[in-house]
């Protein structure tokens, strides 16, 4: 008998090594990235925002547990994905939304958009956005018609995006600054551009998200807005200020950071992600410019979610294959540093 035979020996196919990542760790990183937006949302819109966030998170968690118990599925609440959905749902809702509506939204998000499709990873549509779409369409009076103004109890009838759409809107630099720091009416978490950018960089550095989809989306909206601005005014600087407004308002950057980077509902391949982002940007731009709604981020992402599985067919070239997918012919490229033979031949000449 050798010592090793007294041990409990496990057998498995290689590799026998792991990085130690887990779904929970990734979700916790996203929650940390979302915290600044939550805090700032409460600072802007007061206790109502806090109530919305807490109710949303609590109902998402409760509904997930209940659903999994009901379906006799293993309870996966420890992966924290329900908490992420809850926070996202609250942050894309206005602070004025009644508590019972946010509970309904959470039910729709967790049970219908996620649970019924097979749970985490199997859902086709972004749960938080699906919940929001449900609230937005079912209760338009509270979800899109009135918005809380920051620091007051006053309720305004329009966000900047709807103002831009309806009346001539003149912006000066102080307006841009206010927009950048989020001092405007809007959903709880999507107003402060600065914080969203910080979250974006945080997630990018941790390699939780990929830059392709967000960049594709924002760039497409920017280019589209610039071209229409140029056509409308014929003035380059006016078109540029249009672009700036388009980027600073609405849910564009929030969506680009947290929604088009959602793992389960976006493509897994790099070219697929890029095209996904461009598609989201294009639809957002079309809805904003020509559509009936002032904002198009939510619908654009949900529409692109539907075609995300097909975008997975866009892959990079595999090693050892030519551009058309055939096996590569023998290459003739020689690395300069080791070009010994050529040097010798030249010397011989």
């Amino acid at each position: 008998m050798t010592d090793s035979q007294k041990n409990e020996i496990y057998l498995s196919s290689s590799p026998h090594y792991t990085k130690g990542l887990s779904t929970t760790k990734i979700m916790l990183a996203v929650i940390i990235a979302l915290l600044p937006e939550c805090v700032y949302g409460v600072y802007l819109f007061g206790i109502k925002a806090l109530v919305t966030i807490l109710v949303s998170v609590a109902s998402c968690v409760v509904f997930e547990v209940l659903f999994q118990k009901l379906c006799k599925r293993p309870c996966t609440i420890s992966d924290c994905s329900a908490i992420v959905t809850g926070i996202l749902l609250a942050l894309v809702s206005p602070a004025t939304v009644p508590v019972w509506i946010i509970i309904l939204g959470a039910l729709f998000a967790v049970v219908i958009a996620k649970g019924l499709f097979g749970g985490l990873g199997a859902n086709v549509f972004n749960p938080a956005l699906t919940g929001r779409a449900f609230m937005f369409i079912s209760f338009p009076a509270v979800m899109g018609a009135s918005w809380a103004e920051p620091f007051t109890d006053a309720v305004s009838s329009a966000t900047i995006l709807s103002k831009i759409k309806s009346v001539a809107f003149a912006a000066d630099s102080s307006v841009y600054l206010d927009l950048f720091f989020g001092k405007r009416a809007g959903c709880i978490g999507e107003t402060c551009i600065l914080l969203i950018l910080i979250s974006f960089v945080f997630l990018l550095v941790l390699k939780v998200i990929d830059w392709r989809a967000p960049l594709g989306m924002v760039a497409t909206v920017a280019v589209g807005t610039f071209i229409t601005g140029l056509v409308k005014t014929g003035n380059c600087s006016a078109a540029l200020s249009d672009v700036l407004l388009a980027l600073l308002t609405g849910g564009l950057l929030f969506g680009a950071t947290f929604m088009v980077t959602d793992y389960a509902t976006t493509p897994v391949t790099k070219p697929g992600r890029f095209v996904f982002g461009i598609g989201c940007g294009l639809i957002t731009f079309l809805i904003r410019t020509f559509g009936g709604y002032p904002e198009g981020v939510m619908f654009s992402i949900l529409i692109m979610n539907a075609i995300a599985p097909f975008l997975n067919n866009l892959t990079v070239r595999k090693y050892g294959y030519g551009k058309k997918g055939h096996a590569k012919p023998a290459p003739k490229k020689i690395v300069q540093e080791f070009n010994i033979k050529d040097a010798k031949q030249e010397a011989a000449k």
Partner: protein
Amino acid sequence: MKIFTFKGGIYPPERKELSRDCPITDAFPSTKTVTIPVTMGGAPNTPLVKVGDIVAKGQKIAASDKFMSAPVHSSVAGTVKKIQNCMVTGNMEVPCIIIESDGSDRTDYMPPLDPFTCDEKDAIARIRDAGIVGMGGASFPTHVKLSPPPDKEIEYVLLNAAECEPYLTIDDRTMQEETEKVIDGLAIVLRLMGAEGIIALETNKDYIKPLLEKEIAAKGYGDDIKVALVKTKYPQGCEKNIVEAVLGREIPAGALPADAGTIIINVGTVCAISDAFRLGKPLIERSLTISGGACEKPCNLRVPVGTMIGDLIPEVFTLKAGATAKIISGGPMMGFAMTNAMFPVAKGTSGVIFLTKDETYLTDESPCIGCGGCVDACPMHLTPVMMVRELKAENYDGAKKFGLMDCIECGCCSYVCPANIRLVQRFRLGKAIVRQQMADAKAKAAAQSASKEGEKK
């Protein structure tokens, strides 16, 4: 100095410090018995000896007529005790020749041969007679590798000194302690191939570079052999990736490195080639790393081929009591988990790692969240997540489209997966199924054409 690399890959903890500073020491099994597999690389051999025969060290004991085969030699002088099936790396039972040493040092080596003046055919025959196979793990017969088709010009010979598997330090030690042999062996290969040599060294071993360059200069090979530093990254030592990194070329899908004008050879293999010519000594010894968290004193050993790992415990190395969770033959990324330590060191065994529970992972799979981490990690630029989805749907054509058959089974995808999905493990299964399907289809077509011919008659 440029540092070469490839796209994709992972950075696992190296844990080479466990055994990096331990010089290679000679070790002999406590039972004085070796268990030599009849076939180690290439086509199956048949034993040339029978039970009771007295053999000398270096005597040929198994061989095959096929070109694609390498003979096997006795690694000790003694008596053949048994010829029976034994468990070897991969948990397979294969025929082995069990020889008990008589303690003497009788040798039956070939006469030395000057590699630089002899006929090329004789040189290739010598490499074959010495039973040399790739010692990096794949055990591909070296004389076959060194006989590329005549239409393929070999421009570069890459000495693969990346040693990218965590824990393993045997190539590192060999290059430090046997620098002369390494350079000599590489020079012999260069002479045979008429090519230039590049030694690809990972940056975590950059302290060996001056040693190698000194030896190259001393032997006057300065024009023919260069040392290239490659990034410390897994799987840098994989043939396809090291060619991409160092030469900026890709080996075409389904082709050999010769199609990219290169051959890749392992450090241990060139040492064996040098011995085969200078000493006439066949490949009967193997250096390997013994390491892992459950190992009391990790070490680098030189043992006779056929040494049972279990026969080295506790005389040569000991294990922490009850700490071993996995016994790996090879490295932790691509090695085989064994049921126990009673398996012989073969020509391709570069290390045996005793992992504790903390070092390995036994977590269950959770659902795929589609993070795409495996796509970033894949050194072959495949789409592992889609391959698994297609395999689960039993859509093998879809899996092939995403690269199932191009998978090199390096394990990067499984390593990074946050859901601990056994990606590469599933690909091995998927590949086996596809190969079986292809074989079935071929057999069916053959049967059909045979029956058609029968009808004609």
